[in-house]
């Protein structure tokens, strides 16, 4: 049973609604609550939330310089992920400046992908251009072969299409 204040609020809202639209006012009494699939809230939700929390801790616990690098922008992060993929793929011995930087700070490709999944929702030409500018101008970052990044970006997107990162995050 609602208390006095709640009843008053409900009555006010009801009066206001009936004044604006008697149709919606009458319909309100028929409204039913949307239901989650059986077991979702009870069994699945908490596990999924804890997984996200633990994953975010992994990212937040990285050394500050890594956070700076990752925090530049989502676009820059995409290109970093591309570059990282390139370096590891092309130069598995890990002698390139980029590889040294990432490795020495404990960052992994998985970290970047998690970051992308949490932060990147859209990817368009402006993001790519901004990311390229940031990478090119930022003294923290090693030299980056911009044309190579462009080329690998296309391949990277193909990888995304194959399900490395779900389309809904892009």
């Amino acid at each position, binding site marked *: 049973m609602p208390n006095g204040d709640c009843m008053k609020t409900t009555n006010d809202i009801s009066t206001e609604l009936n004044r604006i639209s008697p149709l919606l006012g009458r319909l309100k009494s028929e409204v039913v609550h949307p239901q989650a699939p059986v077991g979702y809230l009870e069994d699945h939700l908490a596990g999924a*939330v804890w997984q996200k929390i633990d994953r975010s801790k992994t990212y937040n616990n990285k050394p500050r310089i890594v956070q700076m690098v990752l925090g530049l922008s989502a676009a820059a992060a995409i290109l970093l992920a591309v570059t990282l993929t390139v370096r590891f793929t092309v130069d598995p011995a890990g002698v390139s400046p980029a590889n040294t930087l990432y490795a020495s700070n404990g960052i992994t490709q998985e970290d970047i992908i998690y970051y992308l999944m949490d932060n990147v929702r859209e990817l368009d030409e402006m993001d790519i251009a901004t990311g390229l500018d940031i990478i090119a101008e930022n003294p923290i970052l090693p030299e980056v072969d911009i044309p190579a990044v462009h080329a690998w970006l296309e391949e990277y997107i193909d990888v995304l299409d194959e399900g490395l990162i779900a389309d809904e995050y892009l």
Partner: protein
Amino acid sequence: MNYTDTDIIALCSNPSRKREGFTLLMEAYRERLYTVIRRIVIHHEDTSDILQNTFLNVWQGLDQFRGDAKLFTWLYRIATNEAISHLQRGKRQYWDDLPENVAATAQEVATDIPATELLEKLTRAVDILPEKQRAVFVLRYYEEMPYEEMSAMFGTSVGALKASYHHAVKKVERFLLTN
């Protein structure tokens, strides 16, 4: 045992019991938050994603929660902002060009259409509203939230919220009558 908001906040403030407190918070509010998010974004899959992000943000912001607002109002704000951001990212084309004048009055049409059909249309009608107007409509129409509370949530004046709700109701009504 039933835990009050004060109990939950106290547990969450204790570093060694934060996870326990947060688990209780999720259990206490998951259903209500699910409902409000689902009403805004309509589909379960989107709701699931937004609800998880909402709880992630809550976890990360718990240390900053000072209790100035009611716990549920704070949770509503995070959930609603997440839902609005989700809709904005979708860049959807809204069906905003409903005719201003309809031939029949609401009174006449309402008597001819079964309630179940109208309810289905109501869900679709909410989907045509712009993001923030949709949130205002859901919070007022379904959740019966006072304007003052909404004003604190959105940082918008009570007058602007009343106007927004009025427009939303009229748009929904027009949709029900013309589709």
